């Protein structure tokens, strides 16, 4: 909403109309309907929603955030989105077949994540929440390592400092402070200040914005000018709690209260997500951060495979968002521009199916970890106490092996 007048303008005749002399901004209250309408407004978006590719696949131009995109680059973004969606759907199926304990679906958020992920440079650092399979893909994380978390064989096997992608963080909002501290370190190290600089990008959802840690991270990052891009994927739902349970202002507008820039981007538009993320990272790199991006998107599937969205949201809503699909609009645009032909789309689909098949095979063949692994790496140096517990437990297990006369 380009002109959020209802935040600031008193409305005569309402029971809580402001008393003369009372600043309107604190006294005027929008009705619940106005709040919801404001939060959910996306069509054309007014000037506030950055969009470069419409749901119909038409390229539109933005005065501040336009980008030049080569056919090859756009085909690459399309491929990324198709592959991560395919991996996501395969993981969802694996969970339904009992191969994963739980899965956190990405469906619908491909454009936000691929746009942001591809905007980062190798030296930038990313701090994910737990749905960032698309960002992980962009950082070169093997999707099988993501599955190992949900299969229960590991907590994430990659080296976060080598991949420049932190471990998945399950506790809502914790990673925002960790990212801010990391970004403070980048500043202390003197790697911020020009376009060669480093930046940090942290991912969280609309529900996380209610957490104290996210607030504290924004305070901290503002106070210390930390080069951190807060990338909020507003997918409209925090499990069953809708956006209006988290806020009464559009989330990107909160940035102004902290004294830094906030912007809302069409999170189903990979071009806009890429352009806005590049801009925000550049702001941070050059020392003008932090920045808050609200990627306005929609979770098309459940929060996790353990919940049932039909209990809390309307089918109409889902149908409306299907029309905004992030992959279809790129496909339409590629076809209209004659930047891709049927052969390309078939090849990408074949690659996606191959990825899914590999992922399935790796997943079902993942060995269970040996019991001794449980005791490793609790501390840098193993304690005598853990040594003893490990020895005692392994010896206990050995007793079973002996009596059973078989392998454990």
């Amino acid at each position, binding site marked *: 909403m380009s002109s959020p007048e209802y935040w600031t303008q008193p409305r005569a005749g309402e029971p809580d109309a402001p008393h003369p002399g009372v600043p309107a901004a604190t006294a005027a209250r929008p009705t619940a309907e106005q709040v919801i309408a404001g939060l959910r407004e996306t069509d054309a978006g007014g000037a506030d929603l950055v969009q470069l590719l419409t749901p119909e696949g038409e390229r539109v131009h933005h005065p501040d955030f336009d980008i030049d995109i080569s056919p090859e680059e756009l085909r690459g973004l399309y491929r990324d989105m198709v592959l991560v969606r395919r991996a996501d759907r395969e993981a969802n199926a694996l969970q339904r077949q009992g191969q994963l304990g739980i899965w956190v679906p990405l469906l619908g958020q491909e454009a936000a994540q691929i746009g942001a992920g591809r905007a980062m440079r190798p030296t930038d650092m990313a701090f994910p929440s737990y749905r960032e399979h698309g960002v992980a893909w962009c950082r070169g994380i093997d999707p099988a390592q993501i599955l190992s978390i949900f299969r229960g064989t590991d907590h994430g096997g990659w080296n976060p400092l080598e991949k420049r992608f932190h471990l998945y963080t399950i506790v809502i909002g914790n990673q925002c402070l960790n990212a801010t501290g*990391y970004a403070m370190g980048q500043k202390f190290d003197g790697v911020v200040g020009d376009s060669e600089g480093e930046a940090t990008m942290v991912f969280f959802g609309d529900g996380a914005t209610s957490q104290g840690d996210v607030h504290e991270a924004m305070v901290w990052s503002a106070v210390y000018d930390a080069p951190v891009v807060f990338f909020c994927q507003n997918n409209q739902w925090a499990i069953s709690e809708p956006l209006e349970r988290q806020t009464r202002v559009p989330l990107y507008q909160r940035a102004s209260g902290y004294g830094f820039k906030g912007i809302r981007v069409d999170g189903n538009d990979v071009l806009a997500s890429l352009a806005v993320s590049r801009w925000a990272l550049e702001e941070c790199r050059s020392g003008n951060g932090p920045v808050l991006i609200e990627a306005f998107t929609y979770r098309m599937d459940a929060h996790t495979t353990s919940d049932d969205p039909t209990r809390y949201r309307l089918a109409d809503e889902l149908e409306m968002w299907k029309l905004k699909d992030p992959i279809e609009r790129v496909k339409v645009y590629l076809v209209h521009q004659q930047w891709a032909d049927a052969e390309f789309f078939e090849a990408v689909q074949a690659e996606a199916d191959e990825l899914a098949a590999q992922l399935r095979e790796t997943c079902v063949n993942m060995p269970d970890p040996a019991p001794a692994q449980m005791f490793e790496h609790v501390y840098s140096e193993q304690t005598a106490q853990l040594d003893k517990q490990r020895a005692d437990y392994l010896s206990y297990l050995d007793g079973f092996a002996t009596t059973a006369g078989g392998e454990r």
Partner: protein
Amino acid sequence: MAAPTMDRDTETTVPKTQKVTIGKALNLGLRAAMEADPKVLVMGEDVGKLGGVFRVTDGLQKDFGEQRVIDTPLAESGIIGTAIGLALRGYRPVCEIQFDGFIFPGFDQIVSQLAKLHYRSRGQLKIPVVVRVPFGGGIGAVEHHSESPESYFAHTAGLKVVACSNPVDAYWMIQQAIRCDDPVLFFEPKQRYHEKAELDTTVTPGPLFASRVLRKGSSVTVAAYGPTVKTCLDAAAAAAEEGLELEVIDLRALSPLDLGPVFESVRRTGRLVLVSEAPPEASITSEITTRVQEECFYSLEAPILRVTGFDTPYPASKLEDDFLPDLDRVLHAVERSLGW
């Protein structure tokens, strides 16, 4: 109070000694650590210009600058959470939590992230963060300023927990904690900040995660940590006048516990009294009780007894003399142990 004897380096030249308080010793220790390693940062509320509410960080910002001694916004989760990020970037942050009862807003970051990142990354991430916590009562403060939350952290795998009780330990232990690659919860006995002892900065300190026998004795073993160590030493001095020889052990390391000297002592004396200000239920003292009976069952001549705070919230300060273990309650427990 007599400082514990340190193993002296035989090659030592002229000892550089001075009489200092625990607060000053911590200050000197922090200074030494910051001089030794430019990656060491001090961060917390009021640690800069004010030098901390207990002045433990006095003068550090003046000498090391605002980037290494960071006055933070007032939010404990923010202090711990950003310290974790700084550690990921290669720094070694030393966080100050102003008072024990204020650590709980930071509890989530401590137990959910700080404690677990090394494990979750299978050893690929090191998070060398020290969290300094002035703890315990006896200063006549309002509520939330006199608590003993150490058991929460000892209960959490991945954290190391220590408590100093005297200036010599304070000086060395803070430096050792900062050098440790694991996160360390560092508890400081706030009612003892002004206790003085002779500090020789040229000796070689013993290991950090080790308990230490401060006074030899054969009648009853008495083990304590932090503020109650002095109480026990005073009790031992009083008992000696009546011909009783108490063996006093300063536990120092609360996680991992170093109970070797306690087992050895109990095997000789057959008796153990544990002294702590913390409420007894599900605490450090209950853990020690279990492990001593597992290891020394046939040596025990009496049940293990505890002198502690009570299972109440910390009371209003006019009642804290009743809440806190004192010399008489320790001697009473010793008497009960001997009378079994």
